[in-house]
């Protein structure tokens, strides 16, 4: 005890007992929001980068598999000659059945069901190729062929996802404000409790910074404890969420999982909360002390 440097026994304050729990709760909310934000970003990136430059050609099912094969080869040949088409990828019958499974169930696997032929076409958006022009080109060869331009509906979907990302970001911002407010309140309460000690420190020649450092150090520890607590609470929730996502019927959404970047993002809550708490406490003490001589 002889060389104890803690002049304000802040760790014994009642406010410091409940503050880690409050911060843990906010860190939990922040961690969930950040994980949600990063997962939405993953999904919108997949949509944006994989599908924005693609169109899907759908050729109606023919009378026999041989006819389907001939029609598909004709379409691919025509597509390759068209200006603005970069690549063509034929979707196999197996993949088509897999895509139909969420809607048709086990029936989708039946050989008896006639399947349309699908070709993914990657196009150069800089060219003046449109879905309408491609449809006109292909219907002269095979009537009933349709062309679906993904950019039309993807733009709306990506916009919606980006709005959701903004909402998540807004929630993180509000949580930050609430954390700052809580730290300001508890720091002021702490200063009230230790008013006499602060006065003594002033009389013996302590600079405001000396006093503020003690509150800031304590706030850092409390913020760190709360942050770790919040992440520990968030981890099982996130694992449960990932489990639900993995068990969703494939084809509904692109794959989004808790990869390392999401865990890094979520873990960053701990130091960020600790630093925010520390800086808030420091500036609160400095501002409050300025009102005292």
């Amino acid at each position: 005890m002889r060389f104890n440097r803690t002049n304000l026994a802040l760790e014994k304050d009642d406010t410091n007992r409940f503050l880690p729990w409050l911060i843990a709760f906010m860190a939990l909310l922040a961690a969930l929001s950040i994980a949600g934000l990063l997962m939405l970003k993953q999904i919108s990136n997949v949509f944006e980068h994989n599908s924005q430059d693609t169109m899907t050609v759908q050729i109606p099912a023919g009378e026999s598999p041989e006819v389907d094969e001939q029609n598909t080869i004709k379409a691919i040949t025509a597509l390759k000659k068209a200006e603005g088409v970069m690549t063509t990828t034929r979707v196999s019958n197996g993949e088509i059945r897999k895509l139909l499974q969420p809607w048709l169930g086990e029936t989708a696997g039946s050989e008896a069901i006639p399947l349309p032929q699908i070709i993914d076409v990657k196009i150069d958006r800089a060219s003046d190729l449109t879905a309408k022009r491609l449809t006109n080109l292909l219907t002269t060869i095979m009537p009933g062929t349709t062309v679906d331009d993904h950019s039309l509906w993807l733009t709306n979907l990506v916009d919606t996802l980006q709005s959701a990302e903004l909402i998540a970001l807004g929630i993180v911002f509000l949580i930050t404000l609430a954390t700052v407010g809580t730290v300001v309140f508890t720091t002021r309460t702490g200063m009230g409790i230790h008013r006499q000690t602060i006065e003594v420190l002033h009389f013996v020649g302590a600079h405001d910074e000396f006093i503020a450092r003690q509150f800031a150090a304590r706030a850092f520890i409390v913020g760190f404890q709360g942050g770790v607590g919040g992440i520990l609470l968030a981890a099982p929730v996130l694992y449960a969420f990932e489990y639900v996502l993995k068990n969703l019927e494939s084809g509904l959404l692109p794959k989004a999982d808790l990869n390392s970047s999401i865990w890094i993002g979520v873990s960053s809550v701990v130091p960020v909360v600790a630093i925010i708490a520390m800086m808030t406490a420091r500036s609160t003490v400095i501002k409050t002390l300025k009102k005292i001589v």
Partner: protein
Amino acid sequence: MTEVVRFENVGLRYGLGPEVLQDITFGLEAGSFHFLIGPSGAGKSSLLRLMYLAHRQTRGIISLFGQDTTSLPREKLPNIRRRIGVMFQDFRLLPHLSAFDNVALPLRVAGVRESEIKRHVEELLVWVALEDHMDVRPPTMSGGQQQRVAIARAVISRPKILYADEPTGNVDSRIAARLMHLFEELNKLGTTVVIATHNESIVNEFGRPVLRIDAGRLKTIPHEGTQGKSKESKLKIISNLLNQGEAS
């Protein structure tokens, strides 16, 4: 002699209340020893608070160590406060710190090395006869022991001025005499001493110059005429006080 404290037409009011100190003008020379006396509520504590920069005056000029503190920026005040030792009536020791850490506080605040702190604090605690109580916390100490810790804290950084607010108020006469002896010793070493007290018998017997305050106004301006009673006279006073203490 140079003045370490100078008040010029100083006034003080708390908030929108009436002036508790009015037109205070005086100066204290370096190495002087003064009593600050006056009835309860006269403004002794307020005057002391202005002297150790716990409050800012509402008007007038206060100079400490030749520096006008009126317009001094806040960040400069700690350096002046470090040259002032204050002993409070209620001691204001930090209850969660040991006697050693309480005394070490001014040095730690000033950023002195731990090895030096250890040497100085131990030396001073031996001087106030508390070498066996270094690790003891104030709440478990007697009033007299707490008082000695408080004075050790007030003088550890070798202040140029020492203020004591009613130092003999809560102790028996034996301890009071011992304390007065300590103040005299410090004064001999060159420290300017100001003691606020309502114990007029000590004031009369020690025969030091007096700042008398009444209803917020300074009635007696300090002078050096009564300063310097003979050594024999002082020893007699202390002896009397000790005898009183033993008798009680």
